[in-house]
């Protein structure tokens, strides 16, 4: 009872969020990496859109925020060499992306995908109420199911591809693939491999006793062969060479890109949520792995003829983690206080038509992603609450 009895309040939210942005900007400036833009000067969105015929969009979210201390602050830069040296110089970088919704990974990612702060129980296996960007895209542009994909952790994300149908006609959702669920089904058939794959099957760090309902094994194995064009043995054999669930997700993403080349592809990485165990070293390891995977995703885009030169990549954490200085939390371990730093994160966008080496300090909301993707792809997003991000149109 000494000290805090409540979570600390939001009184200094704007100040802290701004300081957070300044930290990122200062680092980037000190590193000589980015130019600046505080106003919408020199934009030519029409030209950009003319250039980008048959545009594709890849979205990478982190379902387990990384704080500035471990990333963009001077002492954190050693953890993100690929973001710093390879991706940021090619990107427009937003220093203040605020999430005012519920700070749970599934509900927050669903909010990113709908452009509306969803309000459901983070641990419930329910669909978002509001239409997703995948539905807007497929319906407006009359695209087949294989043109929009989601690759996600299995802890609740199986319903993220399509809204619950109450506000939007059903049947336009994304193909959702949960790599761990696929692998778990494969392992179930080939039990001797199970022990080696524990790391790759790691799912939920917040509520490890909540196990998802058992998947239909035969249906999942059919998906492995139909979607990934891999035999079960080959799938397991490759998974055995990996060291984390996110590496498995990236592998599945590669297969999807090569087999289907979807125009809209969304992947959520989750390894860094190991922070919930309180082991700082494991959290840092996961950040470094995520940094490497982001670079590999961009390399995959650039080396795949279906994607090269026509793909916009957006990378953003779903939200941050608690500040060391908020006594109501326990620093990096959780995202429970709702303090400014846990609500404030960043975003980078890169690809043709996106200005390189530019930093934007104005505050945007995570909800702004959906209208912006809609603008990139030419789909209306009428029920999304956010605003188009003009700087990257």
């Amino acid at each position: 009872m000494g000290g805090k009895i409540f979570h600390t309040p939001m009184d200094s939210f704007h100040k802290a969020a701004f300081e957070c942005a300044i930290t990122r900007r200062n680092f980037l400036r000190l590193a000589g990496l980015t130019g600046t833009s505080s106003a919408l000067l020199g934009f030519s969105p029409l030209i950009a859109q003319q250039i980008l015929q048959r545009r594709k969009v890849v979205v990478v979210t982190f379902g387990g925020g990384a704080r500035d201390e471990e990333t963009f602050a001077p002492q954190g830069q050693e953890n993100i060499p690929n973001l710093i040296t390879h991706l940021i110089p090619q990107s427009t970088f937003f220093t203040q992306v605020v999430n005012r919704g519920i700070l749970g990974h599934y509900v927050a990612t669903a909010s990113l995908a709908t452009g509306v702060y969803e309000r459901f129980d983070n641990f419930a296996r329910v669909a978002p109420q509001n239409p997703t960007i995948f539905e807007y895209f497929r319906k407006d542009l009359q695209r087949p199911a294989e043109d929009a994909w989601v690759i996600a952790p299995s802890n609740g994300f199986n319903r993220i591809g399509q809204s619950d149908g109450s506000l939007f006609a059903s049947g336009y959702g994304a193909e959702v693939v949960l790599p761990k669920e696929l692998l778990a089904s494969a392992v179930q058939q080939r039990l001797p491999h199970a022990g080696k794959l524990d790391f790759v099957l790691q799912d939920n760090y917040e509520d490890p006793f909540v196990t998802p309902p058992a998947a239909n094994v035969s249906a999942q194995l059919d998906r492995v062969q139909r979607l990934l064009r891999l035999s079960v043995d080959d799938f397991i054999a490759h998974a055995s060479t990996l060291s984390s669930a996110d590496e498995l997700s990236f592998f599945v993403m590669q297969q999807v890109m090569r087999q289907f080349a979807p125009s809209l592809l969304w992947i959520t990485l989750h390894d860094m949520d190991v922070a919930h165990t309180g082991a700082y070293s494991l959290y840092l390891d996961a950040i470094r792995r995520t940094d490497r995977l982001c670079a590999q995703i961009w390399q995959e885009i650039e080396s795949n003829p279906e994607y090269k030169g026509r793909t916009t990549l957006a990378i953003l954490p779903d939200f941050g983690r608690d500040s060391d200085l908020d006594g109501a939390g326990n620093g990096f371990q959780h995202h429970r206080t709702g303090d400014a730093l846990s609500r404030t994160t960043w975003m980078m966008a890169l690809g043709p038509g996106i200005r390189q080496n530019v930093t934007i300090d104005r505050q945007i909301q995570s909800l702004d992603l959906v209208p912006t993707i809609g603008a990139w792809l030419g789909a209306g997003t009428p029920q999304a609450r956010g605003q188009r991000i003009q700087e990257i149109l």
Partner: protein
Amino acid sequence: MDPRSLAPENFAGYRPQARAFAEKHIAILRSLPLPLLSILIAQIIDYDLRFPAEQRTLDRQFDTLSRMDTTSRAALLDPFFQIELSPELLSLDWLHQPHVFNEHLSAALWSTHQIDAYREAGQAYEARLASALVGDVPSTPRFVIVLVGSGVSQMNHVLFRNLRPHGVLFTALDPKGAHEALFTLLRDRAAKEPEPYAHWYIEGGKPASELVTNPVTVLSYEALAPIAFNELNLMHRFATTPHTQSGISAEDIQSFMASLGPKELGLAALPGDATLHAFQASILTNGAGTQIFSTTFVQWTAREALRRAQPITLLARFSPRQVMASMNTMLHRDPLTQEKDVEGSLIDADMGAYYTWLNLTRLAGSEQSRFLVWFEDQRIALAIAPTLPRGTTSSSQLTMRQLLESMADASHLSSVS
């Protein structure tokens, strides 16, 4: 139940001190909005099991509320009254199961987007009652010691990076006799001020029991790991027992976890009184990762000991934790017999030391507090004290005893500068 209709008999099921406290302050309790009242009831209901420092803080808090004039109190409480609660939430038994109620309250505040308003109300409340909530300034300055890096001989990690701006980094400490000097300090301080729960030794491995004596409160991961194993087994059994067709939710498991007390966990077999057992249970049921990683156990226990017991001496020693495996594997294996991640544990402990210092600075009288972290068996230590400069490095040869003297008395500064 409407708080306004609270009557003394409603507290009949409370323990004696809790019942007496509630009856004494029943007029205040009746006047409080439920989103605040449930937080305070959760503290009152465990009053008998609280540390003396916590009891004093709760007493001061209610004394302050009772002395506040009606207008001021109404203004302070009004934001809490504006929080809208659902009929389902209101139907829960906040009087006898406040912890369960508060879990549901928290979920409701987030899902209804009232969490920010609640935090704002909480800030105003804490600011108004700051003098009551801050705790006691100790007559003897607090002294916190953290040992990190057990078993590590070489490293590629820059130690104490977050702490360096606040104190002196010693790079030529003689490790010989250092343990003895530190435990002697702990024993001497405990002997000088033998208040209950005023001196703590928190150990990530096997405790050096021969080096401590009463009244030092000792908690070790080695002793509590079997209890944690009991807890994980109970939770696993609960999670895999069919309850409803819809299965077990995260809230169900959290509620079950919150219901586990010393008796269910088997803590009665360990040394200590009911207060200590309740604290141990809270470490294992409220702390994430404390069950599986000894490093997390030490960090979280030190945090909670400082926050709740407000000790004047605390020695926390990090030991290597088990190597990472899948959560499913770790929940079902004995952490004490696994291979250890020695280097990772040093990084965990380095951050843990920083957090321990941060938690020390949140206590009353922190400007006079002393903090020391030592890379165990090595020549590197960092000390923070009002007697020492900040952001400096000393390469002077010195013993641990000399270092401790320099922290106690500025006159020893010349020997380390």
